[in-house]
């Protein structure tokens, strides 16, 4: 069983009291406990089981404008005492930083509403095994599939965040995650693809057979890829890639990147940065949402933020420290976005596919080719050549490149948005990117 609120609260107040007693002017502490159980399958038989049970503690102590932090997994009182002593000693010799402080009291979350983020259902390992058997049966039904690997993870977590201004709250969350990776082979090639489902509640997890079938289908269609020539072409990004564009956008508007001056979106508030049909929203209070939260990692209340309105940048993601540097109030985004999404567009997936007589559909990118200082983008890619709305043949060993400043202004979104993950996007087309191939 995951530790209850009372246990975590008692550890948190022990830490705060001790820090105060030693002379800290302020302190904040997070105590968490998490239990997860994973079962792995390979080629329709059990491969591994993994159980983890982990406590985690992190403390920040302040002496005026001096601050330092410690973290530990050892929650014995004696160890906590030694660590807080060490932390406070370090705080004393760390230089002052005028922006160091706990969050403004009036911004702290007051009322916690239930977002239904915890499902107490126990899905015993035997049931996980049954699920994975069904999944791999369907994944391997086509004889071009030569290897299947799948897993099911159940996680239950609880945490308390407390600070010396009297904030003390936390809540339980759960997640159920299942994934399947399949390898297909033909005379020309060997290819891999995957499918997964991750939910707060067990009953929302995809059917095992659907998941297996989908993974297999997505893998088989990649067989016998061809390389294409280097050219300018319109690129359609599958949902699993288009949501990555949102993540890049989010890191470029984090207050820390803005305050340090290391983002291509610095000083762009109020300016057009996306095509004028584009709206981007970050909504923390979606019931059962994978990214939902009542407050951010500092205890600050978080409410829905419109980040992009008709293509115009409206807000940065602001935490207390960087907010003070930028003279902005925290908007409850210490720790990043919550449930981030593009509002859906007004063209159907089919029409987007047919929009050009020839385009490239990308299903996977590899490499870390997003530079948020310059906005330059260059990654390895795998996908399909699309002609007249149909997949013509699979494509690999190519790269796609551009600059986000231009790419964001040339985005067209389909109307197929679904809320599956903590970051969600419809299928996306970006016009005029460079493909490097033969």
């Amino acid at each position: 069983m995951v530790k209850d609120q009372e246990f975590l609260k008692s550890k948190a107040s022990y830490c705060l009291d001790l820090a105060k007693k030693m002379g800290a002017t302020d302190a904040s502490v997070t105590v968490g406990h998490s239990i997860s159980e994973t079962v792995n399958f390979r080629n329709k038989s059990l491969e591994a089981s993994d159980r983890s049970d982990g406590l985690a503690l992190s403390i920040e102590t302040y002496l005026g404008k001096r601050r330092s932090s410690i973290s530990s997994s050892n929650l014995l009182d004696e160890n906590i005492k030694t660590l807080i002593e060490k932390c406070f000693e370090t705080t004393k010799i760390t230089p002052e930083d005028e922006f160091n402080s706990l969050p403004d009291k009036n911004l702290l979350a007051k009322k916690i509403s239930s977002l239904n983020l915890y499902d107490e259902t126990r899905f015993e390992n035997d049931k996980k095994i049954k699920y994975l058997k069904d999944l791999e049966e369907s994944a391997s039904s086509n004889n071009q599939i030569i290897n299947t690997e799948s897993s099911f993870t159940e996680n239950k977590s609880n945490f308390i965040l407390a600070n010396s201004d009297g904030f003390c709250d936390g809540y339980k969350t759960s997640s159920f995650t299942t994934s399947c990776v399949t390898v297909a082979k033909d005379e020309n090639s060997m290819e891999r693809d995957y499918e997964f489902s991750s939910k707060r509640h067990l009953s929302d997890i995809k059917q095992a057979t659907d998941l297996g079938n989908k993974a297999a289908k997505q893998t088989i269609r990649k067989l016998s890829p061809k390389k294409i020539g280097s050219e300018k072409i319109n690129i359609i990004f599958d949902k699993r890639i288009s949501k990555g564009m949102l993540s890049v956008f989010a890191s470029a508007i984090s207050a820390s990147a803005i305050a340090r001056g290391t983002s291509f979106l610095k000083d762009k508030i109020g300016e057009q940065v996306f095509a004028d049909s584009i709206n981007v929203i970050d909504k923390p209070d979606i019931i059962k949402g994978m990214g939902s939260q009542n407050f951010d990692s500092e205890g600050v209340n978080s409410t829905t933020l419109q980040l992009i309105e008709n293509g115009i940048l409206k807000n940065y993601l602001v935490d207390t420290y960087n907010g003070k540097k930028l003279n902005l109030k925290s908007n409850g985004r210490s720790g990043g976005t919550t449930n981030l999404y593009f509002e859906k567009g007004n063209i159907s997936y089919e029409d987007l596919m047919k929009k050009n007589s020839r385009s490239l559909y990308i299903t996977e990118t590899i490499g870390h080719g997003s530079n948020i200082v310059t906005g330059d983008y260059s990654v390895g890619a795998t996908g399909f050549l699309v002609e007249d709305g149909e997949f013509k043949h699979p494509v690999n060993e190519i790269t796609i490149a551009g600059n986000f400043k231009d790419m964001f202004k040339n985005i067209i979104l389909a109307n197929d948005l679904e809320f599956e993950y903590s970051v969600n996007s419809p299928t996306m087309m970006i016009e005029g990117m460079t493909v490097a191939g033969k």
Partner: protein
Amino acid sequence: MSNFFNKSDLTRQDADKIVSDTLNNCDDGELYLEESKSESIVLDDNKIKSSNYSSDLGFGFRAISNEVVAYSYSNEISKDSLKNSSENLKSTLKSIKGTYNHEIPKSNKKFYEDINPIEQKSLDSKLEVLNKVNDFLRKKDGSVKQVTASFAGEQKSIEIIRSGGEALTDVRPLIRFNVSVMLEKNGRKETGVYGIGGRQSYDDYLKNDNWKNVCEEAFRIASVNLESKPAPAGEMKVVLGPGWPAILIHEAIGHGLEGDFNRKKTSAFHDLIGEKVASEGVTIVDDGTIDNRRGSLTIDDEGTPTERTVLIENGILKNFMQDRHNARLMNTRSTGSGRRENYRHIVLPRMRNTMMLSGNQTQDEMIKSVDKGIFAVSFGGGQVDITSGKFVFNCTEAYEINNGKIGSPIKGATLIGDGPSILKEVSMVGNDMMLDPGIGTCGKAGQGVPVGVAQPSILIDKMTVGGTKL
């Protein structure tokens, strides 16, 4: 050395008994105990942004029978907690019986000393170096707009207890010193990053004001990039500089030669042992035994002493890298490559220091031989799709080559290639093998472990460069 048996009610005798009881009917497995202390001190935006210290303690208990691995970890080292884990392992393996392999090779060689680098340098003196870095770079040039400098240090103590009570221990220090600088000139911003590190004390790396060299190098890379032009797009010849660019070898070849992917036959290399996979003159080894290197280990995380494993010799594929589990299932021996990020993770076969050895040509000859291509000197991260064999990496410092001469710097571009065929495109191997500065971390299955790479300059006849200029 940590004593794991003075922390709670768990005695060594208890632990031995529970381990032996649990693993009696299994093929392999062990109790892995770990205590780590780590620190990170970061200067950013003219201030000490964070100073964090953390201590972590826990165990991971593993039992293996046939192809099934059962694993359970906890950060509570106690009799109850270990018994719970034992029950959990037994329930997974209840219907599978094995025969425990007691054999584990021994060595008394050590590749680093039992030091705690965190305690060997005072916090004050670390702060002083970080402030000196900041002042030095900001005074150096008006274009310097942002400086980040950091120290990261760690001491990890491990003990492995096998069935029958055999215990193996190791104490592993690790440090890294890093500088990142952002320049702005005529409205353009570019960053340069450089770092150094390994398994010695901070001062071993910082003597003779070596921090200045780290600053100069980060500044030089950023300055070069300020002048960069759009990179070309398409297939062309690529000259790689010596040292850190060997992450190409790591991505293109290394991962594909890890035992697990080959046992599962999901690696493009699984049926190529004894075959020619590279040009003549290409020899690649994975070596865990170089003194004080970031990727070196006295014993791996299963207790096997590390070694120098020949992967490719004169173009012929010789060996895969193995942990005990994959080695047993493939009827071979462990190469001391079983590694894990920490006690929370299972062991996987991983790289240590992956190196392409020197040939006898010069970098000059390579450049002169290229009509149109690029010269890549430094890289950011890379990634590989083991199954299709396609890999990428991102240039952070590269130049055009025109008619045998190095031309303008080019913007960061991704290079993409095909692992199983790329080494056949190597047409020249330099005489200038160099180790990387000690900064690599390799990610696999969500686990990061420190690694090293090395190579001489090489000429690759055909690779796709992912620029924007057609």
